[in-house]
């Protein structure tokens, strides 16, 4: 035991991070770049005039709250897994998944609200952009929910515990990112519409 510990102190190994986690971060960068491009396009286009003014759907406030709650839930699930609290882990994971689905439903109703205001996907780019932002974000969120469900299933098989946290850590990272991405988009829309 002692020699093993000693070994780690001595060897200088450039391996610094779990490769899959690192790849996930790079994937997050690519998603970020897509949205950076779209929001920049929004600003550039807006500056050219002929821009439809409309009120953002109020439901965005609710869905933003849901996304925040779901982030708290998955963090709680992570802490539970760290303590090998399997019941807590499952409850928090289920809650996260449910909140994720609730968020998607809420985003759908934001589209309904937009249609009620006669802001359509086809029409002035001001409206089209909003549909693209929410739609593309929802696509990524669906991928996140699928990821969460996969992790949830593995929690029932006792594959997630304090010694095997990698997938859960990755799911947590991705989920926080998706929540943060939505908050960024919402803030961006609040400031630039």
């Amino acid at each position, binding site marked *: 035991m002692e020699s093993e510990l000693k070994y780690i102190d001595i060897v200088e190994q450039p391996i610094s991070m779990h490769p899959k986690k*690192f790849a996930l971060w790079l*994937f997050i960068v690519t998603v970020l770049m*897509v949205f950076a491009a779209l929001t920049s396009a929004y600003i550039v286009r807006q500056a050219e005039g002929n821009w439809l003014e409309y009120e953002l759907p109020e439901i965005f406030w609710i869905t933003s709250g849901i996304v925040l709650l779901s982030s708290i839930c998955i963090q709680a699930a992570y802490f539970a897994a760290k303590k090998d609290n399997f019941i807590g882990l499952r409850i928090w994971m289920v809650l996260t998944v449910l909140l994720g689905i609730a968020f998607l439903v809420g985003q759908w109703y934001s589209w309904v609200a937009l249609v009620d205001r006669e802001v359509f996907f086809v029409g002035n780019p001001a409206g089209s952009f909003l549909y693209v932002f929410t739609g593309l974000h929802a696509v990524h969120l669906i991928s996140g929910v699928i990821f969460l469900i996969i992790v949830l299933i593995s929690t029932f098989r006792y594959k997630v515990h304090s010694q095997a946290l990698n997938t859960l850590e990755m799911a947590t990272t991705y989920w926080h990112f998706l929540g943060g991405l939505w908050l960024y988009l919402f803030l961006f829309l609040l400031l630039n519409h």
Partner: protein
Amino acid sequence: MATATVAQQDSAIYEHHEQEHHEHEHHDNFITKYIFTTDHKMIAKQFLITGMFWAIIGGFLSTLFRLQLGFPDMNLEFLRPLLGGWIDEAGKLDPTFYLALVTMHGTIMVFFVLTAGLSGTFSNFLIPLQIGARDMASGFMNLLSYWFFFLSGVIMFISLFLKTGPAGGGWVVYPPLSALEQAIPGSGMGMTLWLISMTFFIASSLLGGINYVTTVINLRTKGMSFSRLPLTIWAFFLTAVIGILSFPVLFAAALLLVFDRSFGTSFYLSDIYVAGEALPNTGGSPVLYQHLFWFLGHPEVYIVLLPALGITSEVIATNSRKPIFGYKAMVVSLLGITVLSFIVWAHHMFVSGMNPFLGSIFMFLTLIIAVPSAVKVFNYLATLWRGNLIFTPGMLFSIGLVSFFISGGLTGVFLGNSAIDIQLHDTYFVVAHFHLVMGSASFFGLMAGVYHWFPKMFGRMMDAKLGYIHFWLTFVGVYMVFFPMHYIGIAGFPRRYYSWTNYEFTNMYTDLNMFVSVAAFITFAAQAIFLFNFFYSMYRGRKATLNPWSSNTLEWTTPLHPGHGNWPGEIPTVYRWPYDYSKPGAAEDFIPQTVPLSQTPESNLPHEQEQVKLELEIMKEEAELLVANGSKH
């Protein structure tokens, strides 16, 4: 305990691979070995062969439109068996098909040959071998990356045979031309397939790029610090970083274009009349597309070029038997080019009606790129200077790259000036510029890489004499093709035009165009020499030695035919940088990276001599622990 030691990890991986290898001997069938493989070396070969296939198609398309440009009155009836309805009754090439030809030539060459064929081949092949890794971080992602590329190629290939022709709006596919089906025939199904194909291509590039960056950062062997990385790896690494940051933006641009085309949105469309009919779209901006496209489009130039520059650094240093001049300056200039590549995109749009003040900012930033580029050229020349030059075919192609990089780069300084660009924009001057500095230079980098690493890929040597013939025909040919285009461009002739003979001022260039076309045919035909050499040497070439170029880097420490896992034993440790060529005092003119400083006291520099003690200590401790760990198993 999560305290797996490095040695244990290594041996575990090794055992794992051995096991795999063992299994392979029994179960490895054609499909898992050659088709759905996760071995980075085989995937690299897949990229190379596919890239060569596309290079032949792309080159062939260019001969077709060079026929039209060089011999406008020629009867092209003999092409009817191949092109069918695209040759009209009078034996002329259909003008819309001409547009499709230049579009496909550009798309294929830029994306399929010089991005996938170059980066895909050499990043895959060299990254694990040169940093000392068993394979890429994720073999499965690597497999997906190739097959997405393959699928994207299949879709693009199908689009060539559509009745309405492939996409014809230029490789930049600017809307509104590309967004409206009624604009030109190529904007119909051909454009749709183009967009689908590019979506898969973007996915492929991102999967590849994420893998390359992860591998370089996380899987380097012991002692392989960033300051000891070969410049090839630096170049591939930064290329992947550029790709990760810029391809998503192309995806965003293409997504909005898809919505405009198929769903009726107006991101890029506004107030358009086609055939006397007003379209309902209002409020869009075609310039928006240009901004998004060139935010990828310009970095794409460096995605194409940087790997070629990296390969050149390695080949020139090895064959000059000299350390690369200014290693740090090379790395810094690569970094500089990487950063600058993202803030110069609007120099493609000087005439799009942008604010002239903004234009001067982009002009200023563009001209700054000349600085790191010049640093690189200077360092190549300084490395060559008074070296013991060995003119292998790879070396010749590398020197050819430097030549194109200079002659094409100089015209870049002209074009970067917004005032001159107003005159030269979209003329053959631009065509000459980017074909030299980006197209030919990168192509020569690709060729240098193939000639240099062929022995590692296939365990045999390519024929050097055929290589020389191939080099000289191609090198002279490229200048014959592209140099005259500068004059045509200065005279004001725009690119992408079907016919030269309609105006008096362009009539006088008919002879020059004929010359260019003939040169292009010869250059294209000369590539057959390479193809023969490549495939013949693969089976019949002279057997290679383990380190045929007396090179320092790690890939030459593997067996002649490395298996999946690359090194049969432990992964070698690295003790020095890769450019210890002709070190004063050393017995031989190269010291591989795996030779410890303590074994070369005669050639160590004073500061290296100081490191020897530390190195010996670490080695001693490691040896003790290896023994301790070994006894426990």
